[in-house]
């Protein structure tokens, strides 16, 4: 969820709660105030009538335009004793003048004259309809809420984006950042302390990480130097002995075996370095690579190199496949995937390499299912196979990780199936 949406939603909810509370309180305060006023006027009216009754003067006419009405009923003492002498009530009241029943405020007063005769006086005045008031208030509150909300959110959004610009600049910068590629400095063009600190912290973290990458690559360089020179020395000394010529057949055979073993050590070292370099993103350049051409070349090469295995390999590149990636990494991936098929196939078995709908699929006959979880781990050896270092598939996986390509292994109908998804 984007920050601005979250702020908008929360502001909306907070405003809603506040406005609802305020509307409720406003409603009750209003009702109260109106009732107070009505009661005051009823009281005045009531005392006017009582005064006139007691003075024996003429009572006011109903229908003088004031909407007030009254009833005066003589009552006995017992009734008077059982009732409160002053009572306010809300109920529907028949207003003779209008000839209809309306909600009204009614004041019932019980009083007696000098002769001790009790009267009950009911004065009434039509009041507002609460439902009407409630609806009116509600619609005005809703309108106010919406207008307030729009204004608040508009202003908030403007202020938000105005003030958060440094944050978005940093985020944009982070999106572009790739470990191992020298980054431009973090944009911290701001007077705001928090953003300034954030920018500095980011710069610090990136600098440290860049330094680690740099140190790691230096370490790899040094380690490689330390190992390559002794390897070169051994190899060259063996070659010297072979070149000298005066060796027995057995001695020469031993030397060739040493050379072959040394060759493996050299390749192992090279492959490990390559793997580490791929994982450190040391192959940033990319071009349009024709995967179909790489497949065809690799199959041709391996058909020749592994010709003694007499394998039947079908190639179907379909409509071809071109992807944007580093050429040498693409070659590494394709050739290792295909080589894996040749190395782990029995004599006379069959295999196939297909390209279809953006996927490269390499299949070969197999006897048992492999551990799909560990097959891409370094030095994992399934059923032991001659001429395998256990680094081919890890190389393929490392390239796939670099470009976020999906790679999967399946065993179906007696065939190993490796699939790289380029889409």
């Amino acid at each position: 969820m984007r920050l601005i949406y979250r702020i908008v939603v929360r502001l909306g909810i907070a405003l809603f709660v506040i406005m609802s509370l305020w509307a409720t309180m406003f409603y009750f305060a209003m009702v109260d105030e109106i009732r107070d006023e009505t009661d005051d006027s009823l009281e005045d009216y009531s005392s006017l009538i009582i005064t006139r009754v007691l003075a024996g003067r003429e009572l006011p006419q109903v229908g003088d335009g004031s909407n007030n009405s009254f009833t005066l009923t003589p009552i006995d003492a017992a009734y008077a004793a059982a009732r409160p002498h002053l009572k306010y009530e809300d109920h529907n009241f028949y207003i003779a003048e209008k000839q209809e029943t309306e909600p009204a405020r009614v004041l019932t007063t019980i009083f007696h004259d000098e002769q001790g005769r009790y009267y009950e006086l009911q004065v009434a005045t039509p009041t507002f309809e609460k439902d009407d008031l409630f609806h009116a208030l509600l619609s005005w509150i809703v309108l106010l809420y919406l207008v307030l909300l729009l204004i608040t959110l508009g202003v908030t959004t403007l202020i938000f984006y105005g003030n958060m610009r440094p944050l978005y600049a940093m985020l944009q910068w982070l999106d572009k950042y790739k470990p191992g590629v020298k980054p431009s400095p973090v944009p911290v063009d701001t007077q705001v302390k928090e953003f300034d600190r954030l920018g500095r912290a980011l710069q610090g973290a990136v600098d440290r990480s860049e330094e680690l990458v740099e140190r790691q690559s230096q370490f790899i360089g040094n380690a490689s130097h330390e190992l390559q020179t002794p390897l070169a020395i051994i190899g060259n000394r063996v070659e010297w002995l072979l070149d000298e010529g005066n060796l027995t057949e057995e001695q020469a055979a031993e030397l060739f075996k040493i050379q072959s073993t040394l060759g493996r050590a050299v390749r192992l070292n090279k492959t490990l370095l390559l793997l580490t370099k791929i994982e450190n993103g040391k192959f940033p350049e990319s071009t349009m690579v024709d995967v179909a051409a790489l497949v065809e070349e690799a199959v041709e090469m391996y058909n020749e190199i592994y010709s003694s295995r007499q394998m039947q390999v079908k190639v179907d590149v379909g409509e071809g496949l071109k992807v944007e990636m580093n050429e040498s990494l693409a070659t590494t991936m394709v050739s290792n995937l295909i080589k894996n098929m040749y190395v782990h196939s029995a004599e006379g078995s069959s295999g196939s390499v297909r390209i279809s709908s953006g996927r490269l699929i390499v299949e070969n006959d197999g006897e048992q299912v492999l551990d799909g979880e560990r097959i891409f781990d370094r030095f994992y050896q399934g059923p032991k196979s001659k001429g395998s270092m256990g680094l081919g598939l890890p190389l393929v996986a490392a390239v796939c990780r670099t470009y976020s390509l999906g790679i999967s292994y399946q065993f179906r109908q007696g065939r190993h199936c490796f699939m790289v998804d380029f889409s």
Partner: protein
Amino acid sequence: MKILIVEDDASLREIIHRALAAEGYVVETASTFFEADSKLAGYSYDCILLDVMLPDGSGLDLLEHLRALGKRENVIIISARDSVEDKVTGLEFGADDYLPKPFHTAELLARVKSVLRRGRTAGELSINLGNVSLKPENRVVSISGKELPLLKKEYDILFYFMQRPSHVIDKAVLAEAVWGDYADDADNFQFVYAQIKNLRRKLVDAAATIEIVSVYGFGYKLVVKE
């Protein structure tokens, strides 16, 4: 032909020295940046083998220094770091070739020869051995002046041998040189043998005075017939 080896490892320095001396070159060595720098100030060489990582400085700095002095020596960079950056920087600074460690002696000798040949005879780049002549720039092989048609792999193999006459070449090393990384981990070298067989037959049919002989059953050697 005078060659200077700049390499800090004594053992490697000794082997390169021995191999180059056996080819008839006059060889001098330097083990540090300082030593190399003072030798270069006083003498001139036909070819310099330059290690990138020296205890007291970078071989690339030495190369830059050399070019700044206006010296045009042939330089082959020897680096343990098989990295693109080193290669690019080296070649930008005017190195003539780049050889990653670990290398085969035969490969080193071939590179030295190639660099010296380029430096000496502008344009005339063919390699001649017996009655066979090979022109790398247009991949043409001719025997006694008559062109010999070869397939791609056969040509690559012959080219490799002609750069290293009289040296024992391991089948595995040859496979790596011609088939590249594809031949890594190959457990059977019949495919090399098949190509050699065809090449041999073509050479015999064309009455070439060179031949590829098997050595110890594991390798080959290109020799000029007596």
